[in-house]
């Protein structure tokens, strides 16, 4: 049976869709079967980031309403054959997602895939609560700034109250993914530091993704950053986060500033 992960945040624009695509592609490169599911009905983006926007024929709402079978709606990635996308509908709204329909789809996906990664819409309404409802694990995407941290805190509260796991009295596994982190700005006090965020949210950290132009570049060419440029700093951080999701224990590295190669070696000792 596959594991269901919800990528959520409360606040919009913090990097949920980017992270869903990057983690999905990173897990798929370990030869595990992965499907990324877009729950943002009406404002879908995951198809663009995955570079599959021209290949969408059927979407999740079609499957829920019985107009299409699930395999017809799944889109296989052209670069990785173990990576699939279930797109959201762009022309409908979130009222077309029904609790029973979503449950049916997730249960069916669990039979065929190792990982089902649900890209939650922003907010705490229907779309977001349905995306988290069947999750086994949650990745809470947070930027190092106060409003994002507070919204994440709110979402963590909902993960502990409104999911099936919570209702059965089990503990939902929650992981913090800190995105758009800039060590220099954190040092200057323009951004919250890693420890501050961890202290407020008190859930385990799964990775720190540095603020980088590579992420934007990858989105614009329609490739998850872990596929577009696997050697870039954000891609490496996503690869590590994916390994931690799969259960490996790795030390967390705080992405440093861009000093030269020698500066990196000597600068750390001097400090």
């Amino acid at each position, binding site marked *: 049976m596959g594991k269901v992960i919800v990528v959520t945040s409360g606040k919009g624009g913090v990097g949920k869709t980017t992270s869903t695509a990057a983690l999905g592609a990173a897990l798929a490169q370990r030869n595990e079967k992965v499907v990324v599911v877009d729950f943002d009905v009406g404002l879908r983006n995951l198809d663009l980031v995955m570079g599959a926007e021209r290949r969408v024929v059927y979407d999740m709402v079609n499957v829920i309403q019985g107009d299409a079978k699930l395999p017809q709606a799944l889109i296989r990635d052209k670069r990785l054959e173990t990576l699939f996308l279930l797109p959201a509908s762009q022309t409908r709204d979130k009222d077309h997602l029904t609790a029973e329909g979503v449950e049916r789809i997730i249960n069916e996906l669990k039979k065929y895939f190792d990982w089902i990664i649900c890209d939650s819409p922003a907010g705490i309404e229907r779309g977001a609560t349905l995306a988290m409802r069947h999750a086994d694990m949650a990745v809470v995407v947070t930027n190092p700034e*106060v409003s994002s941290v*507070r919204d994440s*805190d*709110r979402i963590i*509260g*909902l993960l502990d109250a409104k999911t099936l796991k919570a209702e059965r009295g089990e503990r939902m596994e929650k992981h913090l993914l800190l995105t758009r982190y800039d060590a220099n700005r954190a040092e200057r006090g323009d951004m919250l530091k890693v420890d501050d965020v961890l*202290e407020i949210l*008190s859930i385990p950290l799964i990775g720190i993704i540095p603020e980088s132009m590579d992420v934007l570049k990858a989105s614009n060419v329609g490739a998850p950053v872990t596929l577009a440029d696997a050697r870039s700093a954000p891609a490496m951080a996503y690869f590590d986060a994916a390994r931690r999701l799969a259960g490996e224990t790795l030390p967390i590295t705080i992405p440093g500033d861009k000093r030269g190669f020698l500066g990196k070696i000597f600068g750390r000792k001097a400090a």
Partner: protein
Amino acid sequence: MTKVLTDSRSIRIKGRSFLAVVLSPDLPLDEWLLRLDDLAARSAGFFLGRPVVLDVTDLAIDRTQLTELISGLGQRNVSIMGIEGARPSMLGPGMPPLLKGGRPVADFEQPSAESAAAEPVQPAKPATKEPRGQTQSIVIHEPVRSGQSVIFPEGDVTVVGSVASGAEIIAGGSVHIYGALRGRVMAGSVGNSSARIFCRKLEAELLAIDGIYQMAEDMAPSLRGQPVQLWLEGDVIMAETLS
């Protein structure tokens, strides 16, 4: 023009709980009203001076029917102080407010015709029946997250963890927080001026004891980030660091 506040006393806002009679009508409403008339005939003045809440959960009626029901009850001298379980579309201006978060207590005993007639001498019941449960304190083992609120008018609240910005704790007694307090805390909310607030790291948005409140900007900057206890002396919130 700006008004100058000459009186520095703060406004007291308190919580109190009252026991209300909850009426849950069923359909058809005219038959239910007949049964109510029958009850009122057996014990005149049963509803007189009692706070009455109308519970319309699962009752398939619209706003007009609800208005008629309220006026029908009004003619029977039953005045409704609040409505429970109504959809927003059922309520309009001039109607009693929507109430939420009611907790059940022992049912009211309906006076019955037989007991009044056949058994005029009843053994005296215990005069006071405390409507409080057994627990007088609760312990929360997890952080209280933004948007969550813990309401415990019966006694003390202890949180082993922090209270986030945008979360709130309302306790009838004292509040103990073994973590950072970034949200709002109201201790002694049912009129207990000896309640105290303790926290390991004070970064609160609002603090109140027995209705006297203090906002973040009223707190001494030297207390920020410190382990602090707060209590009430007269109408002033006092604070000192715990070391």
